[in-house]
């Protein structure tokens, strides 16, 4: 009914509806505007901010390669350990914490306290702690103390293989030995991962995902036999104890392959703590300073003494200057190459050469000179050779240059034939005026055992990468003497053990050949002292040599000073173990 009264009642309602309607429309318009603003104009910026929050970029650390011995036994591998760290401003009682943790971690309490009270935001308490110990410390619930995973390198064989493998530093970078030589290959190639993750860190599959996987390091397969390495180390340790020597070194080479089956010495060192295992170190004020990581077998130099005579006599035979049965006349026990060089019985000056034992002047065959290790007789043989050819053969046998072994910082040795030196050739003929490493001497003898063929000694037999591809190490060979000369020299070496100075090197059931060496050490004044380096280099079985063993005993007591007494027994012990482990057929009793 359209009455004035009804019209007045309708008006306010319509207005209210209209107002509400307008407000609703405005609200929707506002929302629409905001949607457009966010979804259209600000979308790229907001999307990028969101992506930045979700996107994680992470380096993927490669797994460091493992090292194995020739039997596939593990020598080095990386595992995950826990590194304990603290946030100093969160630690409530630093003194109490330092006292509690210091003993467990074997870290000086004062040093810990200094770190915990510093003004840094992050301090390490100890890196690469064993999992069980880390759990124990974290289980104490100390505020401000946390852990993070960190790889650590472990060496199951301990100090037995330390001179071969070497060690890494706290950051896993190779510092010595094979760890250093092959550090780049062992390390591998780091990867990179970029992916989107949710709030809880879970990767978002549908999001950006760009992963370049890490390439694990290459595994190294060595030629070393750990049980033999252990036996060799124990033999050296016994020798050091028996003769009161400063140290002992031994290397075992495969004759036909150049493989280093064992390379060790005593004192050894712990590759994890890098501390030398020498009881004498305990007597020092700071035993941690007693660190001798140097591998004398590869890096050292010594005057080989009578073991050098192998090269001199082999050269003379090869050049047909002498035969084994050739008689050298009037071989005395003293030889002066310079007038009045030998002023008195004890005065060995420049140009004076003496045999180890006094004897009357008489004729001696080449074989006898070699078997009895006559210095005078050997020099007389070398005289027929001449310096030029002597030097040529010394170099041909590998002295004076690196062998090329796959190890760190190899010593090339030293040949002293300076111009104007009238007697250097004579000294070199009997193993003085020449410096060589034990490895060089072993390789030279291995050439005789290998029918005159010199082979590069090597520790690595192959590498295995992630695809399983195995790469075999390259080896150099070269002829140094004929097989006939090599055969004659082997018989001479056997005679040294059977009838000469090397009797202590004999091994039951096998014919062993070798040469003893006793070289006086130079003092600080440039004169020779009574201290010696006693050595023995031998091979077996003589009929078809498989093994060469070189032993050097440094500064044994005077009563043990000769190679036959100090070094030959070590060779016998190691040789026997090596022959049995390789299953070498015995070639009969020593004649």
């Amino acid at each position: 009914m359209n009455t004035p009264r009804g019209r007045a009642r309708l008006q306010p309602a319509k207005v209210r509806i209209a107002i509400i309607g307008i407000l609703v429309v405005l609200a929707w318009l506002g929302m629409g505007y905001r949607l457009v603003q966010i979804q259209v104009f600000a979308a790229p910026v907001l999307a990028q901010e969101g992506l930045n929050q979700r996107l994680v970029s992470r380096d993927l650390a490669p797994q460091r390669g493992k090292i194995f011995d020739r039997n596939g036994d593990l020598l080095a591998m990386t595992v995950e350990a826990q590194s304990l760290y603290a946030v100093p401003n969160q630690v409530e009682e630093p003194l109490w914490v330092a006292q509690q943790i210091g003993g467990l971690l074997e870290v000086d309490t004062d040093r810990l306290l200094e770190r915990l009270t510093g003004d840094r935001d992050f301090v390490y308490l100890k890196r690469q702690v064993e999992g069980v110990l880390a759990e124990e410390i974290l289980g104490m619930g100390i505020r401000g103390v946390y852990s993070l995973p960190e790889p650590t390198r472990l060496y199951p064989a301990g100090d037995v293989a330390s001179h071969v493998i070497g060690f890494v530093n706290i950051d896993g970078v190779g510092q010595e030995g094979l760890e250093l030589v092959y550090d780049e290959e062992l390390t591998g190639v780091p990867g990179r991962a970029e992916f989107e993750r949710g709030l809880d860190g879970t990767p978002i599959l549908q999001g950006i995902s760009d992963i370049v996987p890490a390439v694990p390091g290459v595994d190294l397969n060595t030629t070393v036999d750990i049980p033999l390495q252990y036996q060799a180390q124990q033999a050296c340790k016994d020798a050091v104890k028996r003769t009161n020597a400063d140290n002992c070194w031994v290397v075992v080479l495969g004759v036909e392959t150049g493989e280093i089956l064992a390379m060790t010495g005593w004192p050894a060192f712990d590759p994890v703590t890098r501390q030398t295992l020498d009881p004498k170190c305990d007597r020092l004020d700071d035993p941690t300073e007693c660190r001798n990581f140097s591998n004398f077998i590869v890096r050292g130099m010594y005057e080989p003494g009578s073991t050098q005579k192998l090269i001199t006599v082999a050269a003379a035979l090869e050049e047909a200057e002498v035969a084994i049965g050739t008689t050298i006349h009037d071989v005395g026990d003293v030889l002066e190459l310079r007038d009045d060089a030998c002023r008195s019985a004890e005065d060995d000056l420049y140009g004076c050469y003496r045999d180890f034992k006094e004897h009357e002047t008489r004729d001696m065959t080449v074989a006898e000179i070699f078997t009895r290790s006559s210095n005078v007789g050997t020099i007389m043989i070398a005289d027929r050779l001449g310096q030029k050819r002597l030097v040529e053969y010394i170099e041909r046998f590998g002295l004076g240059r690196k062998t090329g072994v796959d190890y760190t910082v190899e010593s090339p040795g030293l040949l002293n034939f300076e111009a104007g030196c009238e007697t250097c050739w004579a000294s070199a003929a009997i193993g003085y005026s020449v410096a060589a490493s034990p490895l060089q001497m072993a390789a030279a003898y291995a050439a005789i055992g290998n029918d005159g063929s010199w082979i590069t000694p090597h520790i690595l037999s192959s590498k295995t990468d992630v695809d399983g591809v195995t790469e075999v190490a390259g080896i150099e060979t070269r002829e140094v003497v004929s097989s006939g000369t090599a055969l004659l020299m082997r018989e001479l070496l056997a005679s040294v053990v059977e009838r000469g100075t090397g009797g202590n090197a004999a091994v039951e059931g096998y014919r062993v050949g070798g040469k003893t060496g006793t070289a006086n050490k130079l003092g600080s004044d440039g004169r020779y002292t009574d201290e010696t380096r006693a050595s023995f280099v031998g091979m077996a079985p003589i009929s078809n040599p498989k093994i060469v063993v070189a032993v050097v005993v440094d500064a044994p007591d005077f009563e043990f000073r000769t190679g036959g007494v100090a070094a030959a027994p070590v060779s016998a012990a190691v040789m026997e173990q090596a022959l049995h482990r390789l299953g070498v057929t015995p070639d009969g009793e020593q004649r």
Partner: protein
Amino acid sequence: MTIRPAAQSAESEGLRVLRGRRLRKPTIAPWMVMALIAVVAFLGLGFARTSLDGSAFELVELDRAIAEQTALNRQLNLEIAQLENPARISPLAEELGLVIPEQTKPILVDLEPGTPVVAERSSDGTNQ
């Protein structure tokens, strides 16, 4: 003024008018089908996406389990190597009274030429 004739009842002409609900053959409108498909597709998409998200969690868990087992395997290999270390075994052997023989003597066995080194099984199962 127009005079309109009154409406004539259909009944008056003999037609019968039925009152009430009109009976019709039931049909589904096309728009309902489209709507249904859209809803199903939307639900399906949502389900697939959540499944994928769930798979991401499973994948992460699997990766974690693989990493744990790999680490455990590595640890076990390390333990084996440490146990096999001759420096560990030798002192234990000595404690048990084992000794390394000071002298060894190899024994060589002379075989008749043609003597088989490895035993061969005959047809009756015995070794020869």
